[in-house]
């Protein structure tokens, strides 16, 4: 799975957590999940669980705080996929 394919899946995962759909038109790797996409910080754990399920990987709690932007989340998923 290349980075672009992972990104497509990641955006599908985070979509239900975004209330204001206007922001979804301008999502880039730099987009901050909480500050730019206005995702409730409590829902980051849900996004992590959805990612774990989708990609069949395990993301330890220490990594959650590093998944602040779309790009950083992709980095972590790629890293975990490479095992």
């Amino acid at each position: 799975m290349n980075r672009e394919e992972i990104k497509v899946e990641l955006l599908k995962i985070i979509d239900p957590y975004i209330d204001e759909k206007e922001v979804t038109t301008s999502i880039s790797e730099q987009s901050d999940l909480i500050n730019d996409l206005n995702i409730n910080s409590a829902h980051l754990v849900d996004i992590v669980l959805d990612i774990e399920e989708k990609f069949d990987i395990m993301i330890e709690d220490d990594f959650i705080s590093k998944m602040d932007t779309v790009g950083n989340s992709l980095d972590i998923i790629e890293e975990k996929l490479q095992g």
Partner: protein
Amino acid sequence: MDKRRRVVITGMGVVAPNGSNLEAFEEAIKAGKSGIAHYPELAELNFKSQIGGKPHVTEEEKQEKLPSFIANKVKKNGVIFACLAGLEAWNDAGLEINPGAYNHKTGMIIGSGALGLDTPINEQINMIDAGNHRRLGSRSVPESMSSGAGAYLNSILGLTGRVLTNSSACITGSEAILQGYEQIRYGKMERMVCGSTEGDGKYIWAGFDAMRILCSDSNDNPTFGSRPMSSTSSGFVPSGGAGVMILESLEAAEARGAKIYAEIIGGDVNSGGQQNGGTMTAQNPDAVVECIRRSLETAEINANQIDLISGHLTSTKGDPFEIKNWVDALELPRDKFPLVNTPKSMIGHCVAGAGSIETIACALQLSGGFVHPNINLDEVHPDITSLVNEEKLPKQLVKKELDIIIKANFGFGDLNCCLVLKRFNK
């Protein structure tokens, strides 16, 4: 100077077993349509009572009406029902969804029953027992806390006044409306979103089945199961759903030109103290009589002004006792006794959702000028006909202008709640 405010109903929303929105529900209660079905899963699980009333909320309805997070991620039915009913009521009242736009005088009270047992609690319990509770995610707490349904509804509405929750068994819904009414009546709030919710399914209903208080003789004829006041009433039919009303001071409603369904003019809530015949599961009759009489006092009306009693009347052996309490409380000659009905013959007993859904039925009957039928009442219980003339228990839709309806619910813990509703006259 009398500082008490008049309180009116300006919006309503409902998710009931026989109709998942206000228009469908009104049509259903007029037509005598049952929402009770047989669930094969309950048969497989050795339930004696295999029937119930699950509201039919489609995936399309959820996607169309709810924010994507709630539609796609929130699983507890009780929360979903409350959000749907609450949004319908808010929109029906002509209010804007604009968080923060309403001042601290707009609040909410949404009661709930067994949110913690609502489907899919099994998935959560199984995760915990498998040592995997980290997978519970962020929603297991808010979806099962008693205030959860209101909290999710307010994540949409963004109200900043008093946001309350109550949980008091089968009176939860009418008590929520009474408490909302009193907030406005005595000037604490101008507008209250009031209602209650109950989920559905085996985890909530199993406990009632274990008590042997559900109807188990109609598994092959589910729509006949709920038959309040019948000589063959054999237990209640469990169901789920939510009802939400927007209550406003008359001034606030008139200031924005709101339509008005009806006025709430009084009510009372009390307990029989689980004494003198009252127990965890039965009412102390003196306290019921007292609750009814005090409701009339707060409403400043006489018993002979009541056109319709919307009873609790669950389709158990307790129904004749309830009727006796009404007769004792009102002290009216037989020919002057009000009509009596309850929507439970069509929707079963929505437990914590019952009071709000049934009070919405009352407001619809006042504003629409009709009395909905009691279905399945071919044989009225002889202990009821010995007290009340059978023609007072309508079995068909009656078109009739009503002025006053008294609504009651009675609940586990020996709790009683009464509301008095009046047709709105300026």
